[in-house]
């Protein structure tokens, strides 16, 4: 899991997504459900090994990316492949649902 900022987004997400799918977790420190989904995604990243790269972005500190991706609620998770959002979900979903979401979109 990598913590990124607005400035790093192009390099660490968009460029990287040309090689491997990148899952972006939009979160905030004050958001309770984010504290549920983040550890789950971290665990799944380890489990899927080189299946995808997980990055986290704090919406309070990185407003530019938040606006670009029209984040209206968090936790918001987006999968980026070749620079484009191919799948997304919002909310602290259960492990099975997230696993199924990954399997379907990776």
């Amino acid at each position, binding site marked *: 899991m990598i913590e990124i900022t607005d400035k790093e987004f192009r390099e660490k997400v968009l460029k990287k997504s040309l090689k491997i799918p990148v899952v972006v977790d939009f979160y905030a420190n004050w958001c*309770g*459900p984010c504290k549920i989904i983040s550890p789950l995604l971290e665990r799944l990243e380890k489990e899927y090994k080189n299946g995808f790269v997980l990055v986290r972005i704090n919406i309070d500190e990185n407003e530019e990316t938040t606006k670009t991706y029209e984040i*209206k609620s968090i*936790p918001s998770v987006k999968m980026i492949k070749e620079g484009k959002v191919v799948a997304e979900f919002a909310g602290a979903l*259960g492990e099975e649902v997230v696993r199924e979401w990954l399997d379907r979109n990776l």
Partner: protein
Amino acid sequence: MVICIVALIVFSFLSILSARYRPLAKDAFKCVFLMIQFKPCDVRLEEKIKSKVTSKLMRMPKLARLFYRHFRPISWIFTIAFFASLIYSAYGIYNLLVFGSCDPSSATCEITSLLYLISCYEIETVSIIAIISIILFIYFYFKKKNIKIVIK
């Protein structure tokens, strides 16, 4: 016997608001105190509650009769429901404090619109303000009415 635990909590709360319930709260306390010492409850609390509630239900005689006859199973139902709701509430409060939502498993935090004010972390602030407001309201209400709570 089980009803006295519920009675202690319920009547303790009610006795803050009205002196009418203080004798029952006192009896419930005695009863629980004896119960934890494995001694029989000699304050006849069940009888007192039974007759008090039955007299209130006398407007509907059938319901009063049903309550009087089946007081024990009804008291068990209330006790179980009370503890179930207590556990459920405790779980909700725990989630609220830890995750910022009573049901974090399906929750999202809105970051646009007015919902932002009452979502996630903010709800804790709203809850604290609401609790403080209630306490202040009760304090000023009692002060205005010049009611003093005396614990003997």
